[in-house]
């Protein structure tokens, strides 16, 4: 579970499975994770550069195959007073279909 600094719950991750590799504690780090979020299975792949000046280069891809949706981030992150800050490019895409059970008769 991820928490906000004030203790409020932001998001709950369940059934986490994955692996993370790091050549040093300062990075680079790369890994992949699979987890349940709001009932759907998601996969997260990410890689970082080496931490420099408190900042970390980050590329991450979050996919939800069931919903045919993916979100990726390419930028940098840093911790400032316990808050995760970031600066980069965010992109998302998906394909929304009409539910199949909808009737079609006049």
């Amino acid at each position, binding site marked *: 579970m991820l928490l906000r600094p004030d203790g409020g719950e*932001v998001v709950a991750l369940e059934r986490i499975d994955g692996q993370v590799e790091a050549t040093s504690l300062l990075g680079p780090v790369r890994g992949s994770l699979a987890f349940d*979020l*709001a*009932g759907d299975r998601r996969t997260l792949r990410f890689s970082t550069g080496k931490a420099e000046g408190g900042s970390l280069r980050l590329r991450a891809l979050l996919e939800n195959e069931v919903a045919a949706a993916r979100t990726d981030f390419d930028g940098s992150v840093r911790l400032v007073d316990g808050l995760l800050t970031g600066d980069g490019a965010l*992109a998302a895409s998906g394909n929304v279909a009409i539910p199949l059970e909808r*009737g*079609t008769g006049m």
Partner: protein
Amino acid sequence: MIWRAAAKVKSDGARAALDDIQLALGNTERQTIFTGSGDVDFGRAGPVARAVLSTPPARSRSAAHQRGPPSRPETPEATVRNLVDFAGGGQGQALADGRPGDLRRFADVRRRRGAGAEAAPERQRGRILLAHVSAELPGRSTASFEGVERSDAPLAGRLELDARDLARLTAWYQGVAQRQHPIKRLRLTGDLRHGPGLTEIADASLVADEMRLNGAIRLATTGVRPKLSLTLAAEQLDIAKLPDLPESDQPGAWDLDLSVAAKGVRYAPRRSGRDHAAPAQGRRVHAARRSHRARGWTAPI
């Protein structure tokens, strides 16, 4: 419907600014692209996302797209008749101006098309004091408007629309075979102001199945292209409820300004009838509580 979104994001942990947003809805043949900016506020009460988006402005004032102001002011009778026309099927009926009695005859014509529409204007000293328009439409739908002529608008009043079977109503209105529609029931209420080249609905409440939106709707037809402006707020915005974009020989035939605020965004349809939406603030959701057929989910912002 295929969608893509991209933005530059800058977050200080309490707020994320979204610049250069590009949102594309639809496939490449019928794609509408919005651009704009927004932000996400990670407040104590839960994150709230806001965005102001618009379609690119028209590049040229070609003759095909040229739309000037109406050649003459719309008379109150014409305004009421247009409302009846809208409620009654959209197939315009040529009637003489300035003859209130024609409204009843017009309504009778509409009743023969499978829908009943009535207007009961009261005139005093050349002004409409009360205009009541009501219609019973296919798809177990009803529409009503009750208002008065004002100095700043030919008609202003309360509009109520309840379409219990939006797919059937849409097919009937467009005169085409019924197709699937992402919204089953649509209810709209608001304060309507209707004048030459401009229709506004303030204090609008839009309920599309379980999705509720509040705000304002504005349609201006005096520019190069018709411009639809939506300022809406929702607890949860369901992209799956967005209808297919209207087909058009002229891509981008409309200008759209969209300002939305939401605590959560759902972007996949549910396959079961049960509401499995995760709360926007992302409280714990147990997989066991969800049907294995459920595909929709809410992205906690």
